[in-house]
């Protein structure tokens, strides 16, 4: 099967997110009140094939830990979907 994968990467809680902080001020300056807790992370998408949902899941999780996320400072999550193309 081929799956569409979406990986979401973000700095761990408590980690300073300079981009998020700066963006929050910018949005406020643009007149968007009540915007809070802005965080800027990565959204990585790709297609991958494998035998099963589980098998692909295991592989994607490994990819995240080895390359896509920096687990020292970032946490990640991912979603798989049957490729509908």
């Amino acid at each position, binding site marked *: 099967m081929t799956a569409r994968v979406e990986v979401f990467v973000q700095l761990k809680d408590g980690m300073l997110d*300079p981009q998020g902080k700066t963006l929050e001020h910018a949005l406020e300056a643009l007149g968007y009140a009540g915007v809070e807790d802005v965080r800027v992370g990565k959204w990585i998408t790709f297609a991958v094939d494998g035998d099963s949902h589980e098998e692909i899941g295991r592989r994607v999780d490994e990819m995240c830990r080895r390359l896509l996320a920096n687990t020292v400072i970032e946490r990640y999550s991912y979603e798989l979907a049957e490729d509908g193309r």
Partner: protein
Amino acid sequence: MSGVPIGIVRFPGTNCDQDVFDAVAAIDGARPVWLWHKETELAGVRGIVLAGGFAYGDYLRAGAIARFSPIMERVIAFARSGGPVLGICNGFQILTEAGLLPGALMRNAGLRFVCREQWLRVDSTATPFSRHFREGQLVRFPVAHGEGNYVADDATLDRLEGDGRVVFRYADSTGETGPLANPNGSARNIAGIADERGNVVGLMPHPDRAMSLLVGSEDGRGVFRGLLEAAA
């Protein structure tokens, strides 16, 4: 201090402001004037430079946040009214984000910041900033950027070339403008472009760093002389 007032915009994170200030001051008859990003008046300046650096840290996207600074409304109006506006490096990125110049500047194709001496071929002398060069002349300005990869759709690129609005192209020391001379993957080796009327020009390389042979090149002087004449 007398002379034609040339405004140099300082955003938080601008870091070539002093270099541009010195470059303008080095041109007889020009008087550099600071324009703070929070200001809403241009204090009577006759020309404007958006200097290089990392306005707002280049966070989110280079130039994305800076272009909403209060001063930018005035800068945009000044440009639309035909006033000479030069955007260098981060300044170029801000001009595209502000819609004063077409296209966008993406992350360098090599994904690395690149700083080096760079040859440029002058492809249009029809702007104030390039009129002191000969068409086809090679000039040497340093580049130093991480997001200088110029992109635009083919229609736009064709229009830019057709209308002679490509002002500078990355070249090698022989004038070749092939991929080997391209430091960042820019479409068609484009290093700098002009708007329809030619009074707004943006370029990634740094003429402000090419004002003295002591530091490698003085080819940048022509750019600032042209700015002064257009402002006078």
